[in-house]
């Protein structure tokens, strides 16, 4: 890289900067929309973006939910990174190359909290050996603590520190596309289904 491209860009930028204008405050408390019952709103938003969300009292209940779930039952290759919820048909620790995960049918993964306004879930690579697990398996279940629902994105950013993770993000529903004549199709490249399980005692 020619060292002077950077200098050239900065010199040009300094030459004619617009008049300075203030950076607005974004207080977490609003004027942003909040909901009477954020959990109910979260559930309806997850459904509106093509997923499902079910409440479970304990991890045992969560396991019963999974056991009734067709894609979970039919999954040949499964893995779980949520303690006491779901099971693994192979040893994830022995997987060195993420490409080996190409045949995973169902993954059960943790989420930190949900966002009521848009049904998104905050996930990070904390404790996840290969982040591709959030994208490559055919079906995905994300387990969140039922009490952890924030109202909106401003509250979400008030509680996260994304720079602590090489990868983190919001996931809202299963993978989808409408690129062919605006017809919505669920299951573009990533998960064909998203089952959110909100566990009360976790």
């Amino acid at each position, binding site marked *: 890289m020619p060292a002077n491209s950077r200098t050239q860009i900065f010199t040009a*930028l300094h030459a004619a900067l617009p008049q300075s204008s203030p950076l607005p405050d974004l207080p977490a408390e*609003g004027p942003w929309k909040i909901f009477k019952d954020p959990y109910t709103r979260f559930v309806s938003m997850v459904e509106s973006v093509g997923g499902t969300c079910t409440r479970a009292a304990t991890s045992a209940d969560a396991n019963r939910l999974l056991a009734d779930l067709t894609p979970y039952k039919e999954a040949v290759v499964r893995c779980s990174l949520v303690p006491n919820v779901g099971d693994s048909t192979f040893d994830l620790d022995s997987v060195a190359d993420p490409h080996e995960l190409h045949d995973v049918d169902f993954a059960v993964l943790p989420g930190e909290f949900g966002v009521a306004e848009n049904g998104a879930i905050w996930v990070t690579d904390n404790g996840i050996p290969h982040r591709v697990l959030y994208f490559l398996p055919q079906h995905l279940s994300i387990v969140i603590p039922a009490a952890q629902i924030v109202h909106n994105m*401003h509250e979400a950013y008030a509680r996260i520190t994304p*720079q602590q993770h090489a990868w983190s993000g919001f996931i809202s529903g299963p993978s989808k596309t409408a690129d062919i*004549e605006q017809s919505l199709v669920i299951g573009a490249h*990533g998960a064909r289904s998203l089952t959110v399980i909100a566990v009360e005692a976790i």
Partner: protein
Amino acid sequence: MTHATLAENFIAAGDRSAWHDRALWFVREKRDRQADDVPEWEQLREAASAIKQHTMSRLPDYLQEFELNAKRLGVKVHWAVDGEEHNRIVHSILQQHDVRRVVKSKSMLTEECHLNPFLEERGLVVVDTDLGERIVQLREEPPSHIVLPAIHIRKEEVGDCFHEHLGTEEGASDPKYLTEAARQHLRQQFLEADAGITGVNFAVAETGGFVVCTNEGNADLGVSLPKLHIACMGLEKLVPRAADLGVFLRLLARSATGQPITTYSSHFHGPRPGAELHVVIVDNGRNKILQSPEFRRSLNCIRCGACMNTCPVFRRSGGHSYESTVPGPIGSILAPIREPDQHKTLPFACTLCGSCTDVCPVKIDLHHELYAMRNHLDQQQKLEGSKKLSMRMTAGIFQRPALYRTAGRVARLALRWLPRFLVYSPLNMWGRQRELPEAPSKSFRELYDERHRKN
């Protein structure tokens, strides 16, 4: 070619124009429903606009802060003055890693720099992985819309394309079936790729990271398997704080496709263990736009495409009629600043209705800038003779009240009494696709005078 000529071709193709118009209006209506769901929508737009304007006024500081923080996270940062340098940088990184196959998620910047042909000429295989982009790539044409790259293509045509390239059944056009075929095909591409290239939706100065938004998950699959991720960003993509993302992620998908948020909003802060992450920061004419007080707000653009979905001209003329990487209202400002000769007809492909300005999530004064751009092009002597002449004549008439009144009288008489073949002669552009209104017998001024005399 002029926008008008290309638009004429699009409109001439059966009912395609009406179909295209309906498809985009459907997206516009979805956007309205999402915007209405947020009572503080206008405050969000205000905040987004203020954040962007502030960032532009301190852009060198924020770029430096971003670079410093990104390097601290182990990101390799590169700077490119123009598209050519950007392409060379990307190519040399790929070469250093012996990359043969690259998967790419949607990036308007790499379209703008023509990265794909640059890499292909040098022997690399580049696969666009967004479904719409893959369709246009297989058809060997550019995207017609920045968010909906294949919005101009009918499902039957996608079916033909996939039959030829992916071996789907002949005549099959069910979007579900075709999407499944693309899924199978692209999964193979993801697994075989040696590197992943993405764009950047937002880069954050205070953290040194960036956010990439997709619905399909193609960006994430593309960069989570191979050991090399190259992210290409225009230098205007910065926001100062992570908290600012709260504002922009609320606006982006609602404005773009009428969703509450994209399915995946991934935050990248440093490489995966054992992998490399490169960010290429590109100027390519953005400095020039920043230096122009009239047009610099167009750099606030977050590429949601809302202005295209609402534009009555775009909806009926199709994105390809703009012959510009970014088409539509925002493209009609960005393109002629850089290349006035090539794109001088674009600011006139506009009725100045202002709908684009109303929907823009970052409050770019689009229709004012489009109007200013017309004057700008005139001052640069870029307008064609016939346009200049008719403008000068109109200006002359408007400056002389007596002449204006006479001209009005003559026009009213002419419309009423002249034979049809003369009124609708080839010289009268306004009579080409429409019936002219019935001429009133009296002008407003005459009616006003009469009324005054009576009272």
